[in-house]
């Protein structure tokens, strides 16, 4: 995956997290993790996962739900999926 695509994935993830948690994108920092803000709680987390499945057309198995707990880990997952 080239740098431009990586950058695009990160921007799309930041927008997606902002939408799922219903917070302004300015509050979504690049290193944001589950539990860092009140909106990213268990329900917020599952909202992000459902939107990820829908927008990126990926299937998220329960066994990896607990690994996608930050913006960097979500980006890394999507980048890996792109390569498969």
């Amino acid at each position: 995956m080239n740098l431009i695509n990586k950058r695009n994935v990160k921007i799309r993830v930041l927008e997606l997290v902002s939408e799922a948690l219903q917070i302004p994108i300015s509050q979504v920092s690049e290193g944001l993790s589950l539990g860092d803000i009140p909106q990213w709680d268990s329900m917020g987390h599952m909202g992000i996962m459902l939107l990820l499945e829908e927008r990126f057309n990926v299937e998220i198995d329960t066994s990896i739900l607990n690994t996608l707990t930050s913006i960097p880990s979500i980006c890394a997952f999507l980048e890996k999926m792109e390569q498969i």
Partner: protein
Amino acid sequence: MTKKFQIKSAIIIPPYLVGDVQSKLGYIDEAILQGKVAPAGDVIDLTLTSSPDDNLKSRIEEKVQRMVASMVEGSFKPKIQVLEDCMTRPVPYTKDPNPELMARGEMSKEDVGIYSLGPLMSRLIDYFESKFLLLADSFGARPYRFPTLLPAKLLGRINYFRAFPHSLSFVTHLREDLDIIDNFAHTASCDDHGLNAPLDSFAPIPALLSPAVCYHLYFSLADKPLPDGKLAATAVGHCYRYESTNLISLERLWNFSLREVIFVGSKDFVVESREAARERMKGVFEEFGMAYRVESATDPFFVGEFRKQAAFQSAFQLKFEIRARLPFKESTLAVGSYNYHQDFFGRNLNISLPDGSPAHTACVGFGLERMAYAFLAQFGFDQKDWPEAVRNALGG
């Protein structure tokens, strides 16, 4: 005219959700007496209180399809993890213990989900309790006593109304008004459905019956730093969860007793304590001689919250149940659980650690009636067949 009503589900219910969907059917409409989802997940069979007309059929079908869609669409398949499996441990009894419990006066039904217990059940519960107290002692857990009533405003702080509205038990009293109290005293009467009295005689609901023991501890620690940064506590109490058509004998009571060992502190402290409790209980269950397994589980969240909350609990391995074998129906019954709440209570109730971060919590709970019931379902009533440790403790 038949009272049966069959609905073809618009969405196939996957096998891992059949039990959860079925357990919610009783909450769909007051006309439903019983509901069953076919193993294939395509058909729902309902038994109704009366023969349904087209209006009722259409109303129920709309609600059933709505509930199924909410629980199934976008659901995540749970990851079942078995931590202990002693299900093949031999047990001598295979009969249904219910008729014997009734005949001996060990189980007396006051109403649906409300039972009194006799001397044998009480002594068995005391025995199991003594073992759970030893577990609590091994952690230096401090004893607490909590009320049965839980103020509504406190339960509201932990989003309980959103997650488990279906199982709430409300408490109220007559309004402080001489005319209303006089009128009630002279006109109140009961029928099969309960107490008849004008609804406006009652005050707004100030409290609910506790659905769990540990909440009281968390509320007592709210809005202040946690002294010493960690706490192990224990308490026993009556708990109340209304389970509609799922209320069945001692397996699922509206009013039941729970012994809890509760941990509050850092993530490492509570997670390690929960795991240590499970390890220590292995030996205790061996002493009880019971066939059981410990496996991951989820709480019975209501429809709107179910899909997300259950998946989150499963993915983060927050709940493990001790499921005892019920030989007479080749099924299992949850008699206890090991729970980790992450920092949910710490954040929502503002319980802080010395570094200012929210406290994490965990609890280990044992259902006392279910423990005694499952034991008798596995070993029967002849004490000669009981494991030596239990027989000796009860003086048989």
